[in-house]
């Protein structure tokens, strides 16, 4: 990463900018501020931020629409920060291309962790590192080997695919639809039951320590924590 990462904060609440701006700057980021959806789109195009924090309740455009329009021209990581706490809103945002979703009011430390994770993703090109290390877990993508604290696990092909998909996207929420479509195919995008069963198997095989990294986002999907 060359220089300071530039973060675009989109929110219509001045109070949010009031504390997020100084804190992000103090943590070493450059901050751009947008109060409306139109501003957000303009700044995202002209200033090419490295990450966007996006509120859904904007006065001019709904955040979901802003999200869709952003995704039409940029792959920049987008973390949605919103007071909307309904699962279907979260799923819609994630499926529309948001990388993560943080519910207001949030813990500033957690927000920063999510921001860091999302930034890592924006930079790391997939397949760059054939070995993923996440706490006690080690996934060797070239040899299709999964190790927990050095011991190899026996996984079925589906379990392996599911685990690598989550591990590759460590820190991000993967929605049920995303996981089902990637592992089982588009025909099964509604069979959440499959997912529950396989995640259950995975947790059992990973053991207590490693399975703590595999977090359920109720009603939305799963997330693999980047580290303990």
């Amino acid at each position, binding site marked *: 990463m060359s220089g300071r990462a530039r973060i675009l904060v989109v929110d219509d609440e001045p*109070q949010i900018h009031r*504390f997020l701006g*100084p*804190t992000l700057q*103090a943590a070493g980021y450059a901050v751009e501020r947008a109060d409306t959806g139109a501003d957000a789109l303009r700044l995202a195009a002209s200033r090419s931020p490295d990450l966007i924090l996006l509120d859904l309740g*904007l006065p001019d455009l709904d955040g979901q629409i802003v999200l869709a329009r952003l995704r039409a021209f940029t792959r920049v990581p987008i973390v949605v920060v919103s007071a*909307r706490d309904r699962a279907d809103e979260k799923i819609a945002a994630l499926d529309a291309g948001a990388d993560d979703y943080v519910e207001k009011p949030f813990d*500033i430390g957690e927000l920063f962790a999510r921001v860091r994770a999302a930034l890592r993703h924006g930079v790391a090109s997939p397949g760059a590192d054939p070995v993923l290390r996440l706490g006690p877990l080690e996934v060797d993508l070239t040899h299709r080997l999964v190790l927990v604290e050095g011991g190899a696990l026996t996984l079925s092909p589906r379990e392996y695919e599911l685990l690598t998909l989550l591990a590759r996207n460590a820190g991000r929420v993967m929605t049920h639809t995303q996981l089902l479509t990637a592992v089982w195919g588009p025909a099964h995008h509604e069979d959440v039951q499959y997912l529950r069963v396989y995640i259950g198997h995975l947790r059992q095989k990973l053991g207590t320590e490693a399975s703590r990294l595999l977090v359920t986002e109720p009603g939305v999907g799963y997330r693999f924590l980047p580290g303990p």
Partner: protein
Amino acid sequence: MIASMVAAEHPRPDPDALLVTAAREGKGRLKLFLGAAPGVGKTWDMLNAARRRRAEGVDVLVGVVEAHGRKETEAQIGDLPLLPRQKVRYRGHALDEFDLDAALARRPGLLLVDELAHTNAPGGRHHKRWEDVAELLEAGIDVWATVNIQHLESLNDAIARITGVRVTETMPDRVLEMADEIEFVDIPPAELRARLRSGRIYRPDLARRALEGFFREGNLAALREIALREVAQKVDHDVRDYMRRKAIVGPWPAGDRVLAVIGGDASADSIVRAARRLAEALRAPWIVLHVERPGGVEDTRHALEMAAQLGATVEIRAGTDLVRATRELAAARNVTHLVIGRETPRLWRRLLGLTLTRRLLRQDGGLAIHIVPAAGARTRRAPTPRAPNGWLPWVAATLLVGLIVLAGEVLAGTLEHEALGMLFLAVVVAAATLWGLAIALYAAALGFLSWNILFIPPLYSLTIEEPRDVIALFVFAGIAVTSGWLASRVRLEARVAQGRIENLRRITGFGRRLGEPTTETELLLAVVRLAADIGGRAVVLLMLGEDLSVAADSGGAAMGGDDAAAASGGGTLRGDGAAAGGGTLGDGVAARRASLAADNRHDGLDEGAWAAALWAWTHREQTGHGTGTLPSSAWRFIPMATARGLVALLGLRPDPDAPLDLPRTQALSALADQSAMALDRMRLAAAAARGEAQAETQKLRAALLSSLSHDLRTPLTGIRGAAGSLRMSWNDLSPAARDDLLASIEHDTVRMTGFIANITDMIRLESGEIEPRRRRLPVAGVVESAIARLPDIGLVTTTSVPEDLPDVLADPDLFEQVLVNVLENAVKYSPENAFIRVSAEALAGFVRISIADEGVGILPADLPHVFDSFYRAQRGDRTIPGTGLGLAIARGLVEAMGGRIAAESPRPDAPRDGAPGTVMHIDVPVAS
């Protein structure tokens, strides 16, 4: 994956078989004691077994037992409790009948019912006792019953042929299938005869006759064989059912298929029964075909109904060529066995080899053909309406003949008497065409006598001189009879065809007439009118608001209470609206009805009619007049049902002189079906509209909730975020930034407090806790201080308060709060540099303060809600910040002070192309 493998290896149980099992669950179990002949000891056996059951603690009740004076049987009853018989009066006789309702009410653990095939006294709910039992089983009561084999419908013909005695009390074969268990009560024929001889079955004199008649040894042996075969078949059935249920794969029969062809003669029933037995034996599906030929109206209703009941697929084809229709169907359905009746064809057909049997035999090599012996009866014609048999045609025919006689007397000199004969013939043909065969024959006889006596020499005697006159007379008689017969036949067929066309036209008309109404009431009226057209002295539509099951419990007496509602007169619809009338049916279940009376008489539903209606409702079958259930009722009730359920009941009281015939019944059924669909459609549309409105409300509520959640979360986010930032980055933040974050926390805390204060105010207002301290106030001062509290944000406010405005009676603090809230709202929705105008005027008893703005205005849809809690125009959380409580609190306060508040948008003086704006009117009571 594992599941699918298992499924592939093991066949699954047949769903049909499981369904039957499921359907039986919750129902009573039926055990039949089946005998081959009277006197074998069925009743004795049943009672004996029942006493053992009672000893085991089962609640046994004797529903009905006919001991026929047999002492052994009577002794077996012993201490079994007896259900009191119902006394029914019929044609002066007092009959003891089984009391179904008492049995249903008593709910015994096991009920004993003798002689299942017994026919109930007229006036009972069911025609047959087995139907009573079916109802008991349905109600979950276990029943044991006795029956003799000769009562089975499909064996009726065979047994009549063997024994020479036709049993009139029959019951359908499916009664056997209803049974969960069958116990065959058997003794050898010789022993039975010995029993009979010893007088243990009948009185000695009767017994002697019986021994020579029904109880001949050969008869008994044959009956016993039939019964044994029937029981064996049932056992076979049970095994097969078991195998299907448990998914045991067995040797399945090859693809046989039976086709029975029936006509309108009496052998139709026999053919159906024979086909059924054959199909049973082959375990094959079977089809019953009737070909409707032009000209003949054959009554096959009974046979076809029976076939459908016995499980056949019924096919009705139209066409002239019976053989071709049969062959086509046989080929299409892979029929292997054909069952036909023995015909009694005309001589010429027989001579030409044109009988059905011969032609089928010639053409179909691949079919096994079974010929059922004829039952010896002639073709049964459907009863056709006869011409009005008044005295008029007879008189007219007599007059016509008299006219010819007169003409003959006048022309006698110039005309040969043979030519006069032609004139008489003309009268006969005319009579035949106009009035039918009977009148034609009468005219022929009269004409013949007149001609012979008055004109053929020797005159004034019946004797004839010339041989050629004898021949002429014969020809006369022949032509008269033939032409009369032909003409009357043509007339009859024309009338039947006319009736069919009329019926067809009527049925096709339903769709149009039922499609026109736009409201339910209109539709119901249309249905009632159509039903009355088909033929009913009175028509009633019963619609149950919720479900009739509630009313069914309360019984017929309660339902009979409001029958006066249907009274009417003069062939017109009642004035108070057909569907709006009514009363209550049973326990609060509202019945709406449309009613039309075709005569002046009181057409209320009596108790019997209500019972029939209830039955039709609960069992979803046609009930009452002319049906198998409650036939003594004057009313016929036809359920109006769709796939989604019962919609209403169509009740009809036919004219006693013109009972419902087949075409009219068909038309009624069609009407019931079509109107049920129309009604259902109308209700679905209404429900859809209601659902839409409900969804709208739901959406609104969700939006309100998310808005409230947003309002609470936003300051919390600020507080938590700022606090977290301070803790996390204390050292990296400049002192100025730290100060600002602390100030931000304070700011959000104030916001939060304000919000919570608003909420508590609202709750206080709603619970009536705020008590205004009202006193006399000048309006101008309050308005000024309220405007002074507004933030200075570039809005222009103008006020115009007349000098002579009366003072108001209000709480100064609360009144000011109201004005502030309304003003703040106006500010919120106004653009910069817009005007806000405050004006005041005196109304009757009130002072009105109007606050007008140039803001975005309020949509008509939002207007009724603007004073609701948490409601904000432009829903969702991305609107103008605020609590959504300001106006709600304003209204609460104004109302607490005895005033009122209203919104108007766009404001009356808004420019046509500018912002619509809003005016809020606050009315406060004047101080007296």
